């Protein structure tokens, strides 16, 4: 009887309902159920459009009409056209700004970490710009930089003569710096808050121990704080550099569409895609930018690996030396 029942059970045809009610079935169904929605969203709104864009980049087309397959012509144009490729150089301004921004954020975060009266208030003030919408910031700075307005007035208070001040947005030698300054103003607070968060997680007893050993604040920063937060520093740097490659709001809003030599790669892309409706060329530009961002990120990773590897190598070397010394001592002892 028992064996008959057993064989019966094993031969019973697959019953979906029963399977679905079983523990294993429930597990599988829940996993599928929970992951299918995000995956579907990811696919429809990220990967599928991306594949389409990659496809567009090989065609000469606008939004509604395809004029024909042109192969790599769009890519060649991206590199050959001086106005497009030159706009990439403007990113250097923003990269420079990113470095300044990170240094400033790191400096302020360190100060906050060592304790400041009313620290939370100041932190809030500095983080606040990040919460303002980028378009609003654009309009704020449009007036900020207007001749004889905020910036000029403040500079006049501290003794500058209006005659000697440049036109912040008109002079092509300085207007990109003015624009970069707005993006530094916006993002440094956010970087700072991230740094403070990472620094807070460092064990306080380490500082105490270091202090007892006679380390000053700079040494504490250099040997305890910085190594502990290097992942966050790296993350912030990568985000800032890739962000500076795709700078868009400041030139677009403040300079009304990137006039006066401030058209960054993104602004140029926007113009090509929407004003001139060369969708193929714009898609090619986007893909080239993607590749550039990949390359820059990989380079940064390699760079940091190299920098931190050196430190580890020293440690390893030291350990090896110590081992050697110990081995020698042991050998001596054994010889005795």
């Amino acid at each position, binding site marked *: 009887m028992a064996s008959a029942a057993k064989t019966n059970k094993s031969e019973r045809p697959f019953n979906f309902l029963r399977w679905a009610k079983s523990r294993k079935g429930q597990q599988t169904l829940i996993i599928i159920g929970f992951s299918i929605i995000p995956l579907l969203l990811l696919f429809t709104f990220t990967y599928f459009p991306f594949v389409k864009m990659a496809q567009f980049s090989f065609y000469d087309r*606008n939004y509604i009409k395809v004029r024909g397959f042109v192969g790599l012509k769009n890519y060649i144009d991206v590199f050959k056209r001086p106005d497009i490729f030159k706009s990439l150089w403007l990113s250097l301004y923003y990269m420079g700004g990113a470095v300044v921004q990170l240094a400033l954020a790191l400096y302020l975060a360190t100060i906050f970490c060592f304790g400041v009266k009313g620290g939370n208030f100041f932190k809030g003030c500095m983080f606040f710009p990040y919460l303002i*919408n*980028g*378009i609003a910031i654009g309009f704020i700075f*449009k*007036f900020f*930089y*207007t*001749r004889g*307005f905020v910036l000029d007035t403040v500079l006049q208070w501290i003794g500058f003569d209006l005659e000697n001040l440049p*036109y912040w*947005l*008109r002079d*092509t030698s300085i*207007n990109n710096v003015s624009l970069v300054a707005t993006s530094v103003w916006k993002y440094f607070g956010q970087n700072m808050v*991230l740094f403070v968060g990472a620094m807070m997680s460092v064990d306080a007893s380490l500082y105490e121990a270091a202090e007892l050993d006679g380390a000053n604040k700079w040494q504490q920063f250099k040997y305890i704080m910085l190594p502990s937060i290097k992942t966050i520093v790296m*993350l912030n740097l990568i*985000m800032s550099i890739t962000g500076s490659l795709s700078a*868009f*709001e400041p030139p*677009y*809003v403040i*300079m*009304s*569409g*990137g*006039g*006066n*030599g401030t*058209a960054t790669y993104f602004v140029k892309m926007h*113009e*090509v895609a929407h*004003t*001139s*409706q*060369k969708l193929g060329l714009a898609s090619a530009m986007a893909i080239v930018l993607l590749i550039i961002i990949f390359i820059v990120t990989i380079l940064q990773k390699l760079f940091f690996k190299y920098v931190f590897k050196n430190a580890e190598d020293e440690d390893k070397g030291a350990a090896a030396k110590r081992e050697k010394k110990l081995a020698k001592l042991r050998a001596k002892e054994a010889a005795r």
Partner: protein
Amino acid sequence: MKFKKLMALGMAAVMTMSLAACGSSDNNASSGNDAAADTAAKTDAAADTAAAETEADTNQDAAESSLTYAGITLGEDYTDLTTSIKWIHHKTDREEDGTIQGYIDEFNKMYPNITVEHEGITDYAETALLRLPTGDWGDIMFIPAIDMADLENYFIPYGSVAEMSELINFADQWKYQDQCYGIGYMGNAQGLLYNKAVFEAAGITELPKTPDEFIADLQLIKDNTDAIPLYTNYAAGWTMGGAWDGYLGAITTGDTTWLNQKFTHTAEPFADNGDGTGAYALYKILYDAVAQGLTEEDYTTTDWEGCKGMINRGEIGTMVLGSWAVAQMKAAGDNPDDIGYMPFPITVNGKQYATAGPDYCYGINAQSSADNQAAAMVFVKWMVEESGWCDFEGGYPISKTAPTSFVFDGVEVVNNDSAPEDEADLMNQMNAESELNFNAGGDSRVQRIVEAGATGESYDDIMAEWTQKWNDAQSALGVDVLY
């Protein structure tokens, strides 16, 4: 991860905002309704007319054909008609300040039994298109950008184009199979905005007729007054390409076929004619004004909202804008009478030209009841002929009989001829291929002239570059070079 998400969220928010910002500036331009939008709509529609003409004409109604604009005598016909009609429009500013209600009250003195409901829509161009197919949007709307072939599905004709042309200007704006479907509420003419008081203070007695005279007058304004001679409105963007490109065509060449028929086939459209005409002379005015310091100090921080009050107070001498801007400048301060509008200072063979076209046009719902259609047409006719709204807005007259204060002395008002049907899309293609985008958002191109004027870059080099791009586009698209 969280940070990345935050970043993504932030980016998404920013992008949505920037989209919204783009949208609103577009609206600005289209409510301004420069000739650009008009011609674009026209050429688009013309392209589709050919295709649709083969379709059978199914929507003709006996009731419609008996009702015509010309056949209505205001104050006599339909006085016993009792109904309620609804009108949707884009003039939210006039809705808010009570101007529209005022006109309706006035209308009700003549037609007390016709109740007019009205709704001002902020996002008109899109909302109207969405509501149109539903059919129950009301009885009168300003016709949004639709194809000419669709006109008869949505609207009833006012009468034949020939018949209407005797009564109103621009009867051919919305025409299909020789029927007129739309009547403008006001017209826009292309000229130049100036402050009469500033001109007087500068000692300018006669309006300039050529670029040289104009620049000389700007110099007079600079020498004799504190006003900014020419305010470029560089920073607003759409006031650059959107404004300056509007003068290409008949105004600069005296040839109504130039813009939509010859331009694309011209080998050197930007060549210096040497006599102050043509596209070269048009943009040269801007270049010279900037190069000679006759514009605002810092062009990168011009303020569109602020400039309205400035010209009203006499702090600005001239601005290059379509006549739609007149009403806004007048309303912006205490000196509405100082705002004047003059023909563009280019003279071709001893004659100045101006182009003009209608703003939004009244259309009457084809699905309304016969009574409502009649009441709607009575109302439209009253608004056009009797209300004086067009003149109040400072617009170019629509009605040929209503009194108007719009004066363009000694100027021939013309309309740029539309492109031939087989080339309806050619201008768009040329614009896209050359990336010069004339009358199609080429703001950065005109901004560059200002920059060149300020930095001393050669104007002829820019013109040569444009010519090069134009010629490249012509060969890429295989366009025959005929002129």
